[in-house]
């Protein structure tokens, strides 16, 4: 890994985006059979390796960030890619999950999507990952919007590909397309206003220009830009009550797509919020001059409680997990809106912890859909006997959602409650605890179906999921346990990233 050519080393940031971008386009021409999958595994694998290398380079350099100017244009005219600890970490998560879900996807995609569309599916799949990686790595506000559109459009297509299993995937996709476009245009407007005021698109430059403005706190244009951005981002990260696109999209998307989206898409939305709120506007403006503290915390708390309650009432395990995701986004948002070190660190840790836990759980449901043909509670009934390893993974993941000690979820909860108490917001601590209690109930529903029912229909003849699915599932679930026990890496990265965010670095 260390012996990579110097050219690669010097151009790492752009390669992380270019590799999947070209790989995705080439995937269109890979024809049928197993080739599209092989190709995408290769591409995502290489990308993952590049992000690992990126992280190691960053840690080895000792610098706070690595800046890369595209085409050697000075950054205030061209596009700057900028990697600091926070987005190196998010890149690692996105590329890692992207790779693991690709490995997992082969049988699931074979089962759910007609043969002649595999090459298209994988092409769009890789491009979606490209978009997410690009949003994360770029240091240019307009570039964020462009890549956001790439990832959004591809994700709409991916969701719609669930139509051969359930026609409702089409309306779910359309719904997301409409709402997502509105959200994206809000973001575009916000960026436009900001550019109007500051005259630049580079994030760091924007931040400096804003700080230099004497009427920063009272400028109407900035206020409108801020409101548009926050609402647009809230929609993209599915913050309650702007989550209305998410449950149906996750439920009817192909299984592998649900896993990928749940683990990465909303997380990148949260990352964008980090960049805009902390990086561009700065803590002082976002959380003290503006009411984000109050509004975001309120939305997050409502989200934790109401979406968990809604999750309890679902009869389809996939939509149950989807609503649970909305609740978990609530935890993440609540963490960073506290704007104190423990809260923000909790938020960052939870991005990772929730990604591996939920990704693993959605993949397990995909394996069930593969064997049984559906993810309704009635399909799950009694599967504990027929597919013990898959069911066990779901149960362990569920413990993580509840936030049980020795799972990754506990670590996030610990930071979050610490942050809430630091800020004197004991009410939030209560909300977090109530949310975990509701999580217990909905996780219980899954466990009850899995282990206490008697299998009927196709469930009764189901056999354990194939190894090519089990291994990725258990890698993620294993990670969620591993990072609950040994937290040195995640906790260290998160606390350092949190302090740099709060320090106002763009």
């Amino acid at each position, binding site marked *: 890994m260390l012996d990579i050519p110097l050219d690669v080393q010097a151009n790492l940031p752009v390669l992380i985006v270019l590799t999947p971008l070209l790989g995705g386009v080439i995937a269109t021409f890979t024809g049928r059979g197993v080739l599209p999958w092989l190709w995408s595994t290769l591409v995502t694998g290489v990308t993952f390796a590049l992000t690992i290398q990126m992280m190691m380079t960053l840690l080895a350099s000792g610098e706070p960030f690595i800046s890369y100017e595209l085409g050697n244009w000075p950054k205030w005219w061209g596009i700057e890619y900028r990697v600091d600890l926070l987005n190196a970490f998010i890149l690692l998560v996105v590329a890692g999950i992207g790779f693991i879900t690709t490995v997992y996807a082969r049988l699931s995609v074979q089962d759910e999507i007609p043969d002649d569309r595999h090459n298209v599916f994988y092409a769009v799949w890789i491009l979606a990952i490209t978009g997410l990686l690009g949003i994360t790595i770029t240091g240019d506000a307009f570039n964020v919007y462009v890549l956001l559109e790439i990832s959004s459009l591809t994700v709409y297509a991916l969701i719609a590909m669930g139509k051969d299993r359930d026609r409702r995937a089409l309306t779910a996709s359309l719904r997301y397309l409409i709402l997502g476009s509105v959200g994206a245009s809000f973001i575009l407007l916000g960026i436009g206003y900001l550019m109007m005021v500051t005259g630049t698109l580079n994030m760091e430059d924007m931040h400096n220009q804003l700080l230099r403005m004497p009427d920063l706190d009272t400028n109407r244009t900035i206020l409108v830009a801020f409101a548009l951005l926050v609402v647009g981002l809230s929609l993209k990260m599915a913050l309650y009550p702007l989550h209305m696109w998410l449950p149906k999209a996750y439920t009817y998307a192909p299984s592998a797509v649900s896993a990928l989206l749940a683990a990465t898409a909303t997380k990148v939305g949260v990352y964008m919020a980090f960049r805009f709120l902390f990086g561009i506007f700065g803590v002082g403006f976002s959380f003290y001059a503006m009411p984000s503290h109050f509004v975001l915390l309120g939305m997050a708390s409502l989200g934790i409680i109401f979406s968990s309650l809604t999750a309890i009432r679902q009869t389809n395990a996939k939509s149950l997990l989807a609503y649970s995701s909305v609740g978990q986004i609530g935890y993440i948002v609540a963490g960073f809106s506290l704007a104190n070190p423990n809260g923000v660190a909790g938020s960052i840790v939870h991005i990772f912890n929730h990604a591996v836990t939920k990704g693993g759980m959605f993949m397990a449901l995909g394996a069930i859909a593969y064997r049984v043909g559906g993810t309704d509670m009635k399909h799950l009934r009694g599967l504990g006997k027929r597919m013990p390893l898959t069911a066990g993974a779901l149960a362990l993941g569920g413990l993580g959602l509840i936030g*049980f000690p020795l799972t990754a979820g506990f670590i996030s909860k610990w930071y979050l409650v610490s942050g809430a108490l630091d800020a004197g917001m004991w009410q939030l601590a209560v909300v977090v605890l109530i949310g975990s*209690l509701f999580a217990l109930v909905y996780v219980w529903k899954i466990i009850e179906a899995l282990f206490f029912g008697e299998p009927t229909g196709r469930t009764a003849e189901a056999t354990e999921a194939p190894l090519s699915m089990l291994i990725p599932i258990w890698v993620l679930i294993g990670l969620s346990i591993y990072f609950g026990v040994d937290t040195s890496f995640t906790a260290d990265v998160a606390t350092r990233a949190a302090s740099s965010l709060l320090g106002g670095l763009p």
Partner: protein
Amino acid sequence: MIEFPPGLILVLGALLLPFASGVVRSALALLLPLATLVAVWLVPDNAHVTVPFMGDMEMTILQWNPPTRVFATIFSLMAFGGALFSLNQDRKVELPAAFVYAGSAVCVTFAGDMLSLFIFWEMMAVGSTIVVWSGNTEASGRAGLRYAAVHFVGGAVLMAGILAHVFALKAGGVESPLELGYYAFGPGGFDALSFSGVGDIAPWLILIGILINAATPPFGSWLADAYPEASESGTVFLSAFTTKTSVYVLMLLFAGTELLIYAGLIMAVYGIVYAILENDMRRILAYSIVNQVGFMVCGIGIGTEMALNGAAAHAFAHIIYKALLLMSAGSVLYMTGKRKCTDLGGLYHTMPITMWCGIIGALAISAFPWTSGFVSKSMISQAAADNHLFLAWMILTAASAGVFLHAGIKFPWFVFFQKDSGLRPPDPPWNMKAAMIFFAGLCILIGVFYEPLYAILPFPAAAGEVLYKPYTVSHVVSQLQLLLWSGLAFFLLLPVLKRTLTITLDFDWLWRSFFPWLWRNLLRPIVTVLGWIRDVFFIESKRLAAAFTREERPTGKADPFREWSLGSAMVLLTFTLFIFLVVGFMN
């Protein structure tokens, strides 16, 4: 030398169990607890093992605390007895879960800081929940969920308390705010538990979190709700660890907190009232756990060395005889499939060993001289008397009589004697018999040779001195008097307790008019109100839960859980933007 928590032998060994079968499984099931027991005694006196956690923190996972030895020993012994009793079960998950549960309990006793204590505490909750579920009935599934929910809330409250205290300590400049020493609130009594100040909420939260696990009213209903729904062997395991671990932690953190005296007294009385009302034999015994733990909690509240020794000794003795009683009840259930007192009776014909073991357990729980209950319980009463706590002493004495009434006589009488139910089952399989005989032997052995138990108590006697003399003439005589009178009272009250009984006794006019009067005007109202409270907890709470968990159905009504239509989603989106603008503008 052992340099790791001995409980891990059980926890990790449990993971091997599902892969073994036949003789290997039986051997593992019996050897793992014994290995743990040996390991407990091999831990060096100055052991101190830490592991790093969450970057900058350190957890002390192995350390001797004063009550560690007595609790760790009995927990390991209990795991052995329970494993022996459950050897003929074919449930795959129950025994491993019970071992995780027992092993975590042992780990709790060796924990040297609050965080590791909390982690093992939560692992116990998972293990025990799975044990409840292993009852494998609809009812046990539901009960398991309620059980898990209660313990989860308890854990959350405890964690909140710990966090709040950590922050108070950090603000005070303490370097390692997780050390157990900072959490010993006890000697301050009520002072530590005041509401005057932000930091002071922490001891309350911690106390409530622990009391939930100790089944103290009003948080105590989970115990009698869940335990009788587990399998025959599951209940035996459950009876031992959760409440006694709470006793251990209370002893560590809250020794001498006056509030606990009253909490303990309430528990002692509460357990008796409900046990008298109950018809399910294992639920009677479950309520009597609450009653017995009440004695221990009261002893901790008194907080003198004698009282704490008494509480620890009583926990030791109690685990054995309560397990014995539940094994006896479990054997009856296993052989007959019936659990209601009114369906049973006359079993002494064909289940002599079960009957005798049940009676020995009943005598022990009633603190009959020369049984284990006598040498432990009298220490607590003595401590109350020594501290001139007259009310406490009175209630404890009355409760002792009550114990004899419901657990000492009611259980064996209704199950083994009474009317003949016509059931003629044989004694249970050999391993169940062996486990009962083993524990029955222990009950008597400890009652007669009590010195080894006294030697491992938290505050052993100084060299050359005697810790406590249970067998003085006055102790024995007064205890016998108490038992005889309450025994008499039982048979006098039989018609009231169970109107269908055909036994009539010649009682004189005073009793004929006085007891019914007492019942009608004093006891029955109390009992009715208590029963009503129980209904609210069990029935109304279920109804509420059902309302929240009912599955989504399309309804025309406005409903916060309904899926948003696209149009209203747009309106909402715009509205959110509006809110942001307005609030931002007003700032």
